[in-house]
């Protein structure tokens, strides 16, 4: 074990005790993995452009029972019609009854009451490696969302994760498990916010697993509003059964270091996935998206579409791997990544990658880095929009396009508001667009 790893593990203390034997086994495997492999350095291909040296060397401590952020959240966010759950530094508060057809419980409660219910599900969609192993070793609580077979949720569920930086570095390990029953439909919004507090660094090491049953559909909107001291190292694992649908919109707005590893596996035939995303970096922010789509079953369709805006000295990394395995005949896999560089000092590293071992497939990927389309600019100017405003509008449209088609509209609106708040001249754009 390297000194770094040992140092971090010892600082983080012992794993939460008192769980069922299978969970202890899971935690032990995760710790062993970390002890043997260590934390990733730049020599590891997927970490080539993202350094976690600082993170690993920071003496993060577990948060001591943070005060609830519920009131802060309700004050800050307008009512978007969704049923809201607030999680403060890894601790979940449930308030009121969830919409009909869904059961929402604290993972800590489920582990205490009927631990066997989670045995086959925890760790099913996210491999216990690297920082996912760290979460597996240390998470204490989280949220279990079970949508009943055939249920159509009338209201979306909104899970608000709140990071609470303190005077000393703290780390939180939120965990989410979503199980969509056969034929069910739901919309889930996840927001990652930082409540102003101390100046120390804060690590959110989140793992979410989504298991979508046959013919079920989930719309998942994931919105991160980062701050300079916030580090987010998150994992999202999705598994789709026969004819399932997964519609994902990821919006990552800055952060000192914000990384998401999204792994989606088609386990059954005929399933569909749409993975859209937008990111914005400014100052010296660093945003990193690592997507893996695995076509294991025949006749599945995946479409990845990510767009990035890079300003200041910001650095964005995008890496998508589309894998089509031997038996996945009739697969369709498409990837697209477009980037706009807005400053002289911004950097983007993009790598849309395809690995195909089956001949009955249509696959494509495209990626571009460049400036705004001159024709679009000309069109707006010819309509009397001043150039600077036209640029603002096109820039906004470039990223907000990933939110198109989201239902209910209030959810999309929440994400758009967050994007506008980040962009220079956001108010002016809002005015211009009415």
């Amino acid at each position, binding site marked *: 074990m390297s000194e770094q790893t040992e140092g971090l593990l010892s600082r983080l203390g012992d794993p939460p005790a008192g769980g069922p034997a299978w969970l202890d086994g899971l935690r032990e495997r995760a710790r062993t993995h970390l002890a043997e492999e260590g934390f990733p350095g730049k020599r590891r291909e997927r970490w080539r452009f993202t350094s976690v040296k600082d993170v690993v060397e920071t003496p993060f401590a577990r948060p001591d029972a943070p005060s609830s952020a519920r009131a802060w959240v309700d004050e800050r966010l307008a009512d978007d019609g969704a049923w809201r759950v607030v999680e403060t530094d890894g601790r979940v508060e449930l308030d009121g009854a969830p919409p009909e057809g869904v059961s929402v419980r604290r993972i800590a409660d489920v582990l205490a009451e009927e631990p066997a219910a989670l045995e086959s599900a925890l760790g099913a969609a996210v491999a216990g490696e690297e920082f996912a192993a760290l979460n597996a070793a240390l998470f204490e609580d989280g949220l279990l969302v079970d949508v009943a077979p055939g249920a159509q949720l009338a209201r979306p569920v909104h899970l608000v994760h709140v990071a609470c930086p303190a005077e000393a570095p703290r780390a939180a390990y939120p965990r989410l498990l979503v199980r969509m029953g056969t034929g069910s439909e739901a919309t889930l919004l996840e927001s990652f916010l930082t409540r102003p507090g101390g100046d120390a660094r804060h690590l959110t090491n989140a793992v979410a697993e989504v298991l979508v049953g046959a013919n079920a559909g989930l719309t998942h909107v994931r919105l991160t509003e980062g701050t300079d001291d916030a580090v987010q190292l998150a994992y999202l694992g999705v598994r789709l059964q026969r004819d399932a649908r997964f519609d994902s919109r990821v919006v990552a707005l800055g952060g000192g270091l914000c990384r998401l590893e999204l792994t989606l596996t088609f386990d059954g035939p005929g399933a569909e996935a749409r993975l859209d995303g937008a990111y914005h970096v400014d100052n010296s922010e660093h945003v990193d998206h690592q997507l893996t789509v695995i076509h294991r079953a025949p006749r599945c369709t995946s479409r990845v579409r990510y767009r990035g805006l890079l300003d200041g000295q910001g650095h964005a990394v995008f890496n998508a791997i589309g894998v089509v395995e031997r038996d996945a*005949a009739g697969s369709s896999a498409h990837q697209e990544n477009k980037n706009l560089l807005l400053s002289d000092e911004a*950097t983007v590293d993009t*790598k*849309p990658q*395809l690995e195909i071992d089956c001949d009955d497939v249509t696959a494509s990927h495209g990626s571009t*880095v460049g400036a705004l389309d001159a024709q679009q600019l000309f069109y707006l100017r010819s309509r009397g929009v001043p150039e600077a405003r036209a640029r603002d509008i096109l820039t906004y449209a470039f990223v907000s396009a990933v939110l198109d088609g989201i239902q209910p509209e209030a959810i999309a609106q929440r994400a758009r508001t967050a994007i506008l708040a980040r962009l220079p001249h956001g108010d002016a754009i809002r005015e211009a667009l009415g």
Partner: protein
Amino acid sequence: MSTQQIDELLEKKYEAGFFTDIEQDIAPPGLTEDTVRLISTKKNEPDWMLEWRLKAFRLWQRMKEPTWAKVSYPPIDYQAISYYAAPKQKPKLESLDEVDPKLLETYAKLGIPLEEQKLLAGVAVDAVFDSVSVATTFKATLKEAGVVFCPISEAVHSHPELVQRYLGSVVPVTDNFFASLNAAVFSDGSFVYIPKGVRCPMELSTYFRINAMNTGQFERTLIIAEEGSYVSYLEGCTAPQRDENQLHAAVVELVAHQDAEIKYSTVQNWYPGDEDGKGGIYNFVTKRGLCEGARSKISWTQVETGSAITWKYPSCVLKGDDSVGEFYSVALSNMRQQADTGTKMIHLGKRTRSTIISKGISAGHGQQTYRGGVTVGRGADGARNYTQCDSLLIGSRCGAHTIPYIDVKNRTAQVEHEATTSRIGEDQLFYCRQRGLSEEDAVSLIVNGFCKEVLGELPMEFAVEAQKLLGISLEGAVG
């Protein structure tokens, strides 16, 4: 056509005189500093050359063989290779009857004349080429133009200042494992120098280069194009070999000064091994061009149908303002072949442009990876790149992988990458079949259409040959 092979045979004839048993003895398998010194001594090299080789060797000893490529092969025992010897001598055969009929069939399809077939197959024949006169005719023309075209071992003596200045300037000895190995033990290769303002009067190729040394497994090519000059260089390794697994680690360096243009074309058809993946060449090659001056241009065109394993990324460093880099590639892997190939375009100068067109075809159990890098540096204002890489899959046991790295640090850059992967359309096949084409011919036709953009970049005679090669290499892939 089959230039490398003819070349080698021509050379062997020359060498027969002094390529004695003793020489074979003093270069036993193994690689130590003594081997490097021996090679250098054999070539009567000046001290600086030996020092350069030794530096590379010492570096190489501390390096690890790269493992990141998507290829797998049993570990290579570098101490089991003989570093100063001709490629394995084939037994001299008495007549065509003794030659593997499969090989003859291939030659017949390539349209190689009978006499040439004999030569290629290693049958002892009397000289069919008046090699000396051929060479002198060309040499006279080149000399008149001021072009230097000679073995690099000769250039070390005749143009030491040029070799010293440019050797390792594009691919430094520290570059990578195989490049360092090559620097330590390279046996020979070509040296080309085009003086200022000269348009090389003919396409240069190894075909008519008279080279006293064997071109071995570790050749090194250095091409320098001075201001405003132009040269087109053809490299052919286009006939099947019957050798066992053999390591081929070459280095090619190109330097284009202001307004100069270098066009480098390769048709590679080393022995790919048999259906079960036995034998074949390990082709681990480092090729890089430096567009040193403003408005210079380097264009790589390659057709890769051979080798058991290909590991090759011809690249361009676009340093001069307005310089241009191009990469056109067709790579085919059939049977158990594995190819990890692509390019790197490094944009440093202002308004530099690059184009990458890559066509990968996988059949049988072939594994094909396009690995490309486009880097735009902070100062490369207005840089432009367009990349298109398409993969075609034939059969359900092959694989096609695309790994493009795009790293951009300049807001005015415009970088586009597009890639598709698909198989031959049933409708296209059906159309050809109902017009009376056999399935194999139909596939060959469709594949050639798929590669058209690249084949069009090849000099004419190469293009014809490449088309035929594609057809032959795909045999047995359908059905």
